[in-house]
């Protein structure tokens, strides 16, 4: 059952081979048992989860089940859920219990899915290793001495270790795709505006996008069918007709042109990762795809631009955590300014503070034009590069990350090295494009991710390519030994 796909689970529930309560208990037990050392969850609440499971069983019995009814799903602790702690892995929100549901949570609740728990992450989604959490580092199920990637590391690790059939995450610069790659699971970052940001705690508003984690592209499609959709409470949410993200799963790859950007295969890419990715590209060719060269000449500027824009927005988004209305407040202080200082000094971790400082700096009088405005110009150039590239191909393919999972603590003291982990992923966020990562091999026993970037609203096409690849390969079926 722990290896079953969402559609298999739904079939088992429908046939009453298992109940949602049993299924939920199964995964809760895994989280508390073999999963415990991974530290993938910030909060579980068996009573709450099982109550939802019982309701789902009722719905199934009444014949009113949908594709996700009764399926337990883990949510990144960046999505607020009514009655659940919603901490963003920060001391600042350690005591915060949300009085409302995020749009994504509402959609899953309406579909009858069960909230399995809230997953661990980098504080306020700032990080690429899930080490920057008030609740401690998450560990990679393939090697617990290594990081799972981040910031949605808890969700990726939970899906990889079969602690949850599926999970949600958010991706601001690669926070879904990079941990998916490092943990050997599938993750999709949709087109900006496809998934509502309402109730998704903001890191960098113009880049943040929610998306699913699962073990197959087909499961990602099933999750997207629930997560995506217009929400009038998010002004950047796109009002488009509902679509079936599974509609292109069976489409053959014949005639597909996959673009390979040379910029993604240069220095900095580990040789064994490159080998796995090249193997995957050959597999796509065997399936009928035509491989073409494309160019993303400004690719090298994406990390610098990203690390101006994202901190700028974050510095403003995180101003609300001031100790006045909710969340952490320093216990001792002398007057208002001291209260602010101590609250924020004690409530935020070092990486969050670093980004607030950088963001404040780049928006300051006299620096705005040189940093923020210039970064926005680069952002437009990067979007234009993609637009040019998509004239000659249907999807861009390459590595998700430059290397496999690194060791815990390896890059904690070197933020620039940490940031370079996002080198292949941030461009899609800057351009607002959909992108996914799927497992495509191993290097030194650790999973390697293949990234596919599509044109705007090409999620279904990307999922189709991934699905055909997964029908021909079994990388996505591999399970870390201790969690099989």
């Amino acid at each position: 059952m722990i290896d079953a796909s969402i559609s298999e689970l739904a079939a088992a529930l429908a046939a009453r081979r298992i109940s949602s309560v049993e299924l939920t208990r199964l995964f809760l037990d895994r989280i508390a048992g073999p999963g415990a050392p991974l530290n993938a969850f910030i909060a579980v609440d068996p009573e709450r989860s099982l109550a939802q499971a019982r309701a789902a069983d009722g719905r199934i019995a009444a014949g009113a089940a949908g594709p996700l009814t009764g399926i337990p799903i883990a949510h990144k602790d960046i999505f607020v859920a009514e009655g659940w702690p919603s901490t963003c892995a920060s001391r600042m929100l350690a005591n915060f219990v949300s009085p409302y549901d995020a749009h994504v949570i509402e959609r899953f609740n309406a579909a009858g899915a069960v909230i399995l728990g809230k997953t661990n992450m980098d504080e306020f989604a700032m990080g690429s290793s899930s080490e920057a959490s008030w609740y401690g580092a998450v560990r990679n199920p393939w090697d617990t001495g290594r990081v799972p990637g981040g910031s949605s590391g808890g969700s990726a690790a939970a899906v990889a270790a079969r602690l949850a059939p599926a999970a949600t995450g958010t991706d601001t610069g690669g926070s879904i795709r990079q941990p998916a790659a490092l943990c050997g699971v599938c993750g999709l970052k949709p087109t900006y505006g496809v998934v509502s940001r309402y109730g998704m705690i903001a890191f960098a508003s113009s880049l943040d996008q929610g998306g699913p984690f699962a073990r197959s592209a087909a499961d990602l499609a099933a999750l997207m069918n629930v997560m995506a959709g217009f929400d009038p409470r998010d002004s950047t949410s796109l009002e488009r007709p509902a679509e079936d993200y599974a509609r292109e799963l069976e489409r053959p790859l014949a005639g597909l042109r996959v673009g390979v950007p040379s910029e993604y295969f240069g220095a900095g890419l580990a040789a064994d990762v490159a080998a796995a990715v090249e193997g995957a590209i050959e597999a796509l060719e065997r399936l009928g795809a035509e491989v073409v060269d494309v160019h993303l000449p400004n690719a090298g500027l994406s990390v610098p631009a990203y690390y101006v824009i994202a901190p700028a927005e974050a510095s403003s988004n995180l101003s609300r955590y001031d100790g006045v209305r909710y969340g952490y407040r320093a216990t001792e202080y002398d007057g208002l300014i001291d209260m602010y200082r101590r609250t924020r000094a004690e409530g935020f971790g070092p990486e969050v503070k670093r980004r607030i400082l950088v963001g404040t700096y780049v928006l300051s009088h006299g620096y705005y034009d040189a940093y923020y405005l210039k970064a926005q110009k680069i952002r437009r150039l990067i979007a234009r590069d993609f637009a040019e590239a998509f004239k000659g191909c249907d999807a861009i393919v390459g590595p998700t990350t430059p290397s496999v999972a690194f060791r815990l603590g390896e890059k904690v003291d070197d933020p620039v090295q940490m940031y370079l982990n996002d080198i292949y992923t941030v461009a899609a966020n800057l351009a607002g494009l959909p992108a996914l990562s799927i497992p495509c091999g191993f290097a030194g026993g650790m999973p390697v991710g293949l990234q596919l970037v599509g044109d705007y609203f090409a999620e279904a096409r990307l999922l189709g390519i991934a699905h055909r690849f997964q029908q021909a390969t079994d990388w996505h079926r591999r399970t870390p030994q201790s969690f099989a």
Partner: protein
Amino acid sequence: MKWETVIGLETHVQLSTRSKIFSGASTAFGAPPNTQACAVDIALPGVLPVLNRGAVERAIRFGLAVGAEVRRRSVFARKNYFYPDLPKGYQISQFEAPIVQGGALRIVLADGAERAVRLTRAHLEEDAGKSLHEDFHGMSGIDLNRAGTPLLEIVSEPDMRSAAEAVAYARALHALVRWIDICDGNMQEGSFRCDANVSVRPRGAAALGTRCEIKNLNSFRFLERAIEYEARRQIAIIEDGGRIELETRLYDPDRDETRSMRTKEEAHDYRYFPEPDLLPLEVSEAWLAEVAASLPELPVARRERYVRDLGLPAQDAATLTASRETADYFEAVVAGLAEAEPGGERPAQAKAAANWVAGELAGALNRTGVEIGASPVAARALARLIARIRDDTISGKIAKEVFDAMWAGEAGGENAADAIIERRGLRQITDAGALERIIEEIVAANPAQVAEYRSGKEKAFNYFVGQAMKATKSKGNPAQVAEILKRKLAG
């Protein structure tokens, strides 16, 4: 040295939407603290702003009313600063691309002279909450009911040269925003708040002096006094050889002075940047046309029409267009008069109506604090009263007595004036024979005054008018009385 004061005003106009600019919470005034603050207003994690269309429509109305450019595409920006009553740690405002750019407000000064004050811009933004510094045992309370209330900040050019001009501008602006239904204008509740940028320079100098921004001017009187004080303060400093520091000052009405709030060094770096949670605001041509079609005739247009079509003096026209209610009332009186005396001359009717609306009626409204819309004397009833003066049924003086009785509710309906005139027996004595007899008696009884008058002391004439009015209980037709008196005294 002769000094010139230069003033520009920044006015925060609270827009009269039922819900807030970025949330669905109510904007009603006076609710218990924090009962009108939803998740968005208190800035819970994860919430997002959604722009209120009604607030934008009101900004467009204003832009059209002042002949400004309404931008087809404007941008919201975040103004970042920490304050306990600012829940997000930033205010959503507009910075580089405000919705309203330029325009002008035409004002009428006390001497009837008209001039235009140019507007720099008007932009949409959200209000902050309120800090409550009492009743919390040494702590401060925060009330977020006002947080997110829609504001239009209207910025003028430094086009005013005296406190009186600034007040005329503020009054005209106040009248306009109420006229076009975008603000209730309630200054006590903070719906219309002015900040004044004041500087002084030697008369004739081209360059502007260093300005100070004065805050907390929540009445026209405070505005006037604060500017006067501030100009005196600045002149005294310069004449003493000092320099004016760029700073923000607070007006203290109790002491009638301004005092420093923060200097340039303490000024915030607001780190404005485009608000990523909101798309640029697009205003379509169709929407613009729709809003334009819904605008009422504007005060300036009415003023010009009153002068052009009704022959009113400019000053009267300005007074009558101080509010839409006053103008509407005035026009109803004119219409009532035209109906009461179909052949009457329009300009004379209009002038009579103007005198009564701006005179007796305005006085009564002021004394009692009643709004013109709730006047106990309806426009058509007032028209009938004026008609009775014009057809010589009563004198102007008696008419005031009748008006007071109408105000007091002695009779109701359109014909209240007639009812009171009849009941009180106030009809004018126009019987020439009767008047002649009364005047002959007065002349006969006052030989000394007659002699005085005949010796050239014209003033004595007034004595006889007074006597005649007394004898007729003011009912003598004044023109007739004067005519008969002249004849009799000429002897």
